[in-house]
C-alpha cells in the first residue's frame, strides 16, 4: 500500500511536470497575448490549450537532423541532460505534507546541484554544434550560470541558518511555526528570484539564446525533438524555480484550511510562473557585460551583507 502511494507520487510528479511544461508553452503565449493586447493562440481545443499537443506532434514529426560537422555523441546527449537534471530537481519538491518523492536531509543542496547540472546541457549543446553562434551562446551561458549560481546558493544560506536545516520539508515546517521566509529574508528572496531567472535562462536573462544577436544561441543547430528537449528543460526549469520560491520563501503548502495544502502549493507556484511570464512580456534583455557586472558588483556584495546580517542577528538573539 505504502509502496503504491510512493509510485503514484513518483509518476504523478513525472507526468505532472511534463504536462505542466507542455501546457506552459500554450499558457505563456496566452498570457503574453493578454499583456500585449492580443488574443494569443485560441484555436485548437478549449481556449487553444490543444496547442500543447499540436506542438508536441509537430516537434516529433520534424526532421531530426544532426549536422555532419557536429560531435555526434555530445550533440545527442546534451538536450537530455537538462531534462534529466530538472526532473531530478523535482524529486525534492514537497508538494504537500506527505506528498514528495524524497525528503532528503540535504534537499536544498540537491536542488542547487541539479540546477547547476543543467548548465552542462547548454554548454555542451553549444560546444558540440560546432557553430559560432552556438558556441557564443554556450560561452555566455557558462559564464552567466556559473556566476549566478554563486548568489543563488548564498541567498538561500540565510534561510538555512534560520531554519537550521537543509531539508525542504523541515524548512516548510519551520515556516509553519514561525513566519514565512520572505519577510525575514526579503533580500535573500529578491536575489534568489533574480538568480533563478538567470539560472533558467529565461527573459530578460536569456542571453545564451538571444535570438536577436545569436540566431538561436546554443540551440541554433537543433531541430525536432532535440530542440523540444531544450524547450522542455527550460519550462521545467521555470516550474521548478517557481515551486522552489513558493516552498522556501512562501511557506510551500501552508495556507488557510479551506483548501487542501497541495492546492496552496500549486497556487503559489502558479503565481510565480505568471510572474516569470510577466517579466518576459515587460523587460528587455540587458547587454551581456551589464548582466555580468550587475551580478558580481551588486548582487554578490548584497548577498554577502545579507548573509552576515542574518548571522549576526542570529548570534545576537
Amino acid at each position, binding site marked *: 500500500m505504502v509502496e503504491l502511494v510512493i509510485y503514484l507520487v513518483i509518476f504523478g510528479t513525472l507526468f505532472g511536470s511534463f504536462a505542466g511544461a507542455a501546457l506552459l508553452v500554450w499558457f505563456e503565449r496566452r498570457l503574453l497575448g*493578454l*499583456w*500585449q*493586447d*492580443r*488574443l494569443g493562440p*485560441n484555436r485548437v481545443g478549449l481556449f487553444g490549450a490543444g496547442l500543447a499537443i499540436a506542438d508536441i506532434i509537430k516537434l516529433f514529426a520534424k526532421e531530426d537532423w544532426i549536422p555532419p560537422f557536429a560531435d555526434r555523441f555530445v550533440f545527442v546527449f546534451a538536450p537530455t541532460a537538462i531534462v534529466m537534471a530538472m526532473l531530478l530537481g523535482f524529486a525534492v519538491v514537497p508538494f504537500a505534507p506527505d506528498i514528495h518523492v524524497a525528503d532528503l536531509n540535504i534537499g536544498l543542496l540537491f536542488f542547487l546541484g541539479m540546477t547547476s547540472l543543467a548548465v552542462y546541457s547548454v554548454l555542451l549543446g553549444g560546444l558540440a554544434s560546432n557553430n559560432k553562434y552556438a558556441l557564443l551562446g554556450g560561452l555566455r551561458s557558462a559564464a552567466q550560470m556559473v556566476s549566478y549560481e554563486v548568489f543563488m546558493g548564498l541567498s538561500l544560506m540565510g534561510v538555512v541558518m534560520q531554519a537550521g536545516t537543509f531539508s525542504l520539508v523541515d524548512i516548510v515546517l519551520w515556516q509553519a511555526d514561525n513566519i514565512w521566509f520572505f519577510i525575514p529574508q526579503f533580500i535573500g528572496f529578491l536575489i534568489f528570484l533574480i538568480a533563478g531567472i538567470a539560472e533558467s535562462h529565461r527573459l530578460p536573462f536569456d542571453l545564451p539564446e538571444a535570438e536577436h544577436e545569436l540566431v538561436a544561441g546554443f540551440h541554433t543547430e537543433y531541430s525536432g525533438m532535440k530542440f523540444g528537449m531544450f524547450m522542455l528543460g527550460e519550462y521545467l526549469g521555470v516550474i521548478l524555480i517557481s515551486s522552489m520560491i513558493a516552498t522556501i520563501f512562501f511557506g510551500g503548502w501552508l495556507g488557510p484550511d479551506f483548501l487542501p495544502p497541495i492546492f496552496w502549493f500549486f497556487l503559489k507556484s502558479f503565481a510565480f510562473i505568471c510572474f516569470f511570464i*510577466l517579466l518576459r512580456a*515587460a*523587460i528587455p534583455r540587458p547587454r551581456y557585460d551589464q548582466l555580468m557586472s550587475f551580478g558580481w558588483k551588486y548582487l554578490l556584495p548584497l548577498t554577502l551583507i545579507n548573509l552576515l546580517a542574518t548571522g549576526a542577528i542570529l548570534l545576537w538573539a
Partner: protein
Amino acid sequence: MGMILKAIWSQLVTLYRVLLHTFTPTDTVSYPEEMPYLAPRYRGRIVLTRDPGGEERCVACNLCAVACPVDCIALQKTEDEHGRWYADFFRINFSRCVMCGLCEEACPTYAIQLTPDFEMCEYDRQNMVYEKEHLLISGQGKYPGYSFYHVAGKAIKDKDKGESLNEATPIDVRSLLP
C-alpha cells in the same frame, strides 16, 4: 548607487504598467469570424471606376504603370471615333502588387483606386491576374462627381471644347478682336 535604484524603479514601473494591460481590451480580433474595421482609405484590391456619366474614367495615360514600383500594371491605349481615349486592355498582376497605392496617386483622372478588401487569395497563381472586366466597377469610387473630360477642355462625343462647367471657351489666337 542612485542610478541603480533608478533603474530598478523603472523596471518595477514597467512591470506594473504591463500588468495593467490585463484589463485593457485586445486590439486584435478573431479574424475570419469577426472582421476588423478597415478605414475607407485602406489599400486593398484595386478597381477601375467610372465617371458620373457612366463612362470609363481611365484615359490610358500609362502614368500608373510608370509609377508602379513592381511593374505589375500593363495596358494598351485605344481611341473611340470621337477622340476619347480608352484602355484597350488593362491588366494588373496582383501576385506582384504590393498594395502601395502609388498608382492611385499617379492617376490624373481618379480612375484607379484601392479599396478596403484584402481577401483575394487564390490557389492558382494565374487567377491573380485581373483583366479590365474584373477591375472595372460601375460606380465612381471614392471621388464622386469628378469627370476628367469635363474639366480637361477636350472635345468628346456630346461636348465641344469649352462647353463644360469649369471650362472657358477657347480663344481664337489668330483673331485681333479683344
